[in-house]
């Protein structure tokens, strides 16, 4: 009987030796002992398809097709242009400018713009120390005088080394970012006179 227990013990040691412990790092895909319909013949986002020539399950829209609700006929709202093709000044009427919009703009700006343009909009984002070329400061007069529509267009289509951000920011979010950029510019130009009397004490100003 001793030999039986000894053999059992070695089998256990061997099993643990081969299978290892929980949480060991492995490069091989997880075992699926019982398939249980885990992998089904249906299409999932960003997956591979053996049927379509380009091998993707995500289908691009055929040429000339406009998805329902995606006509984007409002040129000012979706392209930042006025009737004569000039850049619109101000935020289009379809967007309500309020504290919520600016808050949203700040959040989106921090995610998508601050890595290069910096939290203050001065072009000193984290990428600068890694060799990103000259990121312009929003506080240059060249950009201060740009119309809101032109800023919107820069986000939508990119400019110089900046690639388009239209895939990351919905048009309404782009306007929120434009509004926030304007707020950053206004803040940079602020003076002591702009501080309300009730908040002066917080800043140590008499």
């Amino acid at each position, binding site marked *: *009987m001793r030999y*039986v*227990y000894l053999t*059992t013990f070695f089998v*256990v040691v061997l*099993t643990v030796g081969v*299978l290892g412990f*929980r*949480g*060991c*790092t*492995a*490069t*091989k*895909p*997880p*075992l*699926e*002992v019982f398939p*249980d*319909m*885990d*992998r*089904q013949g*249906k299409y*999932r*986002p*960003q997956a591979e398809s053996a049927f379509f020539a*380009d*091998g*993707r399950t995500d289908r691009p829209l055929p040429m000339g097709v406009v998805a329902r609700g995606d006509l984007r006929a409002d040129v000012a709202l979706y392209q930042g242009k006025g009737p004569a093709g000039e850049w619109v000044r101000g935020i289009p009427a379809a967007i309500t400018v309020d504290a919520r919009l600016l808050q949203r703009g700040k*959040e989106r700006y*921090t*995610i*998508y713009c601050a*890595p*290069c343009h910096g939290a203050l909009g001065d072009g000193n984002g*984290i*990428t600068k120390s*890694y*060799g*990103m*070329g000259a990121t312009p400061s929003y506080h240059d007069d060249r950009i201060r005088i740009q119309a809101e529509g032109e800023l919107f267009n820069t986000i939508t289509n990119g400019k110089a*080394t*900046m*690639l*388009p951000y239209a*895939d*990351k920011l919905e048009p309404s979010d782009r306007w929120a970012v434009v509004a926030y950029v304007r707020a950053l510019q206004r803040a940079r130009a602020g003076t002591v006179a702009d501080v309300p009397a009730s908040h002066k004490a917080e800043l140590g100003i008499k």
Partner: protein
Amino acid sequence: MSKLFPKSANRLPLQIIVYLFVLGGIVTAATTYYATPKYTRVGYAPVQPVPFSHTLHAGNLGLDCRYCHSNVEKSGHSNIPTAQTCMNCHSAIKANSPLLEPVRLSYESGNPVPWVNVHVLPNYAYFNHSVHIARGVSCVECHGRIDQMDVVRHAKPLSMGFCLDCHREPEKFIRSPELVTKLDWQHPEGVKGQIEQGKKFVHDWNVKPPQSCSGCHR
């Protein structure tokens, strides 16, 4: 005859029964330990076509998760970023690195970089990223400290029991939605503060995580 069955053979039936119990115990223990996603899935860290480091990008540089996974708030599926997302910076930074060759090829050709999927749910489980993000379930709850992973590693089991832990007691996990991508955030007042605030969120947002089958399976 005495040679064939020595006296010790009298104890044999009992010994066999005891051994079978021991063996049964070992098999049960082994199954409990191994036949679970805690063993099969946790620790999966495939070799990717580009050695992208989340430690560098999300940890050191402080990029928000949503810079790349930009649809996570809008869509059930959290997207793998396009090659253009990489090129936003890498057209200027390390623009000639041989490690980034697959990204440049993808950007030029439009064919995807063949990233290897790490977190794959069974196809009958429908997880929606956007609703969880909107109700303050942080990325870290299911993916672990991605910002400390040079190579992404499957950190949590993502089993049904794992989902239900949170669906039964959401107050232990949910936080303010602005903090979902702050992977190192913990409630400053510890577990007690988390549960107190969590209960408030559960009440205010009317959080009722489904525990019925059809909540996740259809």
